[in-house]
């Protein structure tokens, strides 16, 4: 355990910008959620009506969870934040832990430290301490913010504890995956896959049942705190116990492997290669992640397709309809649900696109681009391969989700004309997601220090849509977001003009980035 203190200080120093930025984002999210819903539902009757409708809508329960006290405005207000926030927090904890364990090891920084007076377990322990500490601070700040927004004290604390428990479990889980996989990408990938399974288990347990499925999922535990609806504190013992168990397992695994190696052994590969050029290499590097993302979108499409149909039969209260139409536009409930779900998918597909573009940045900073660019490959051709995969990948993701959602929905309704309608709803999202790819290319191409532009846009644009109506932003400000211009398809007619403008914006940004890349120094 020698050196844990020093490593913790090192990690905090390295993340001195990242951590406060993340904390403020979560605080904004909870304050916005609390404020928004209180104004929408002024009376207990309206709260009860909305809560009953939400609980009776499988698609909503699947995505956000269940409301356990239909009279509690807190439970209603924080439903979305509790569910989505927990998922984002889990991803954040995973990235944080892997960043300070496997990434350091992969890049050789760990070796530099390991030669100093640092115990074998110290880097893992330090990473877990930093991530767990961040989660504790986040829980406290969140609870205080909720109290500040006027919600009950105990419920606010329970909400913080619910997020904390999810964050802790995935902190420990990432500690384990960082030992299993030998690359950063692999460690994050395996941990996110576990998160995906946890999400699915909770979604199934809360909707179709059996109910105990939710209890197999750490995300389910977060829900079972029931903040503002009973505040079940004993769930904390379950989450904490599990965290200790998993963190111990991670420490046992560290002692059983070599530095730099994973638990999965390296197999020898071919002695000669068939990669034909820059594009062949780009495809080889990107195909694995694309396959993983596509699988996720296919599963999501099937899920959305199978539950959206049920909503059309529901007798929704005016408030619930209002709720959905704000998300999905003026049309029937089922169509609104599709539009809302595809809206979320569009943001996630953009995330795929941005990370695919960021591969260029990674290749450049790791100096792998250097020998390629010293060969007959021009910068443009080198970059174009990755950008084409990012753009094509975004389209493939939305296409497969739309196709699966449409087919499942049409099969249930027995009307195969619906396939096209639902598919169109997914496809209209593509241009908006392409704009984000363009922003990422532009930032990276103009200067390496602007490479974060893509991720920043990905955080800011959806937030504009969430927070804009709550804080009464000017329309022009909200119109900056490409997602604001996507027609609410199906059913609302497809209008070509906004889509063309989005395509133009995406193409322009991509062009700016590629021209910039040709003109600047390569690291």
């Amino acid at each position, binding site marked *: 355990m020698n050196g844990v203190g020093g490593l913790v200080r090192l990690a905090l120093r390295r993340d001195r910008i990242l951590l406060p930025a993340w904390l403020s984002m979560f605080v904004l999210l909870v304050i916005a959620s609390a404020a928004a819903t209180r104004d929408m539902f002024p009376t207990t009757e309206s709260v009860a009506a909305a809560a009953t409708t939400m609980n009776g809508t499988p698609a909503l329960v699947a995505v956000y969870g269940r409301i356990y006290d239909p009279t509690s405005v807190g439970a209603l207000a924080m439903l979305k934040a509790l569910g989505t926030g927990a998922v984002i927090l889990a991803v954040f904890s995973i990235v944080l832990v892997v960043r300070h364990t496997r990434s350091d090891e*992969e890049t050789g920084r760990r070796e530099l430290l390991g030669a100093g007076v640092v115990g074998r377990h110290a880097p893992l322990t330090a990473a877990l301490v930093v991530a767990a500490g961040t989660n504790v601070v986040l829980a406290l700040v969140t609870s205080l913010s909720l109290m500040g927004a006027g919600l009950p004290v105990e419920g606010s604390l329970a909400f913080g504890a619910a997020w904390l428990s999810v964050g802790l479990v995935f902190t420990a889980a990432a500690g384990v995956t960082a030992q299993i996989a*030998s*690359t950063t990408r692999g460690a994050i990938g395996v941990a996110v896959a576990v998160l995906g399974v946890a999400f699915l288990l909770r979604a199934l347990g809360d909707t179709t049942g059996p109910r105990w499925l939710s209890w197999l999922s750490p995300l389910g535990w977060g829900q079972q705190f029931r903040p503002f609806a009973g505040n079940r504190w004993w769930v904390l013992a379950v989450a904490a116990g599990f965290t200790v168990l998993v963190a111990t397992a991670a420490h046992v695994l560290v002692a059983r492997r070599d530095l730099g190696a994973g638990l999965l052994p*390296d*197999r*020898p*590969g*071919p*002695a*000669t*290669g*068939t*990669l*034909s*050029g*820059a594009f*062949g*290499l780009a495809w*080889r*590097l990107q195909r694995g992640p694309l396959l993983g993302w596509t699988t996720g979108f296919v599963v999501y499409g099937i899920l959305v397709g199978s539950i959206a149909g049920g909503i059309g039969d529901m007798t929704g209260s005016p408030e619930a309809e209002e709720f959905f139409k704000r998300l999905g536009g003026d049309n029937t409930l089922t169509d609104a649900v599709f539009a809302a779900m595809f809206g979320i998918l569009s943001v996630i597909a953009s995330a795929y696109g941005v990370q695919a573009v960021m591969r260029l940045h990674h290749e450049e900073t*790791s*100096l*792998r681009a*250097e*020998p*390629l*660019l*010293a*060969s*007959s*490959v*021009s*910068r443009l051709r080198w970059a174009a391969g990755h950008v084409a995969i990012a753009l094509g990948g975004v389209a493939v993701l939305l296409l497969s989700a739309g196709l699966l959602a449409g087919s499942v929905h049409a099969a249930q309704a027995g009307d195969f004309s619906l396939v096209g309608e639902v598919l169109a709803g997914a496809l209209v999202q593509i241009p908006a997601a392409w704009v984000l790819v363009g922003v990422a290319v532009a930032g990276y191409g103009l200067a390496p220090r602007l490479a974060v532009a893509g991720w920043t846009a990905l955080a800011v644009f959806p937030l504009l849509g969430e927070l804009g109506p709550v804080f009464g932003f000017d329309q022009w400000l909200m119109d900056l977001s490409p997602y604001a211009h996507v027609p609410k398809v199906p059913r609302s007619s497809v209008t070509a003009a906004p889509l063309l403008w989005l395509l133009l914006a995406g193409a322009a940004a991509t062009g700016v980035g590629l021209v910039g890349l040709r*003109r*600047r*120094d*390569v690291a």
Partner: protein
Amino acid sequence: MTAAISVSGLRKAFGRTLALDGLDLTVRAGEVHGFLGPNGAGKTTTLRILLGLLRADSGSVTLLGGDPWKDTAALHRRLAYVPGDVTLWPNLTGGEVIDLLGRLHGGLDLARRADLVDRFEFDPTKKGRACSSGNRQKVALIAALSSHADLLILDEPTAGLDPLMQAVFEDCVAEQRHEGRTVLLSSHVLAEVEKLCDRVSIIRQGRTVETGTLSELRHLTRTSITAELTQPPDGLAALPGVHELRAVGTRLHCQADTDQLDDVLRQLSTLGVRNLVCRPPTLEELFLRHYGVTA
């Protein structure tokens, strides 16, 4: 002979740091040219400008008759490059990367590839993440040496290689020169440059401080003398052109300016010489004078 590389007055700044401050470099076609300098002297920056990865702030650069910033891809078909710090894709094998780089350089000589894999005792089935730094270096070296390039640009290529492999590398460079290729070899391994290079440029703080053949450079410097005398070397230290004199009893070590050598030897013989070793200065000593004394 025509110049394969000609650089003059090259300047490049990164923010406020001046990396290159009027650097000159001429590499003749068909020669092995050593490019020497301490860490941070601007060697890698120069090479990256020659490769068109960085754009020079001012100065003129001609590489194989073209402008490396404008004619990048066309020029790159005629050169091969070995970076000082080779990183591989963790999930590709060394063999795959060799073939990829070879293809991107416009084809590679398969017989030579096989021969080099053998001579460097390289296992091409190993994945990139499992390769040591020496093995990563071998990947880049094999790809470059088995290409059909006219010009090889090598940035401290032997840093991670063991002495046996360094010997293999030296043989390979000698063969390349024999075939008429031009080699620009950046290094701070002096023995290597001494063995391999026809001409040398020494740079320091972004400027060229010396350039020429090794013998030309040695004229500028001193001769190293080690002698065993019959009596203590009194009075020798006062002689003009004698430097760094160390005497233990009758044993003596000093350096003498080459144009004063005659006087120094005459003085030594009056003292009675039992044993005398006179040798040209090693590049090490050249280097120490450039960077040690004046630094």
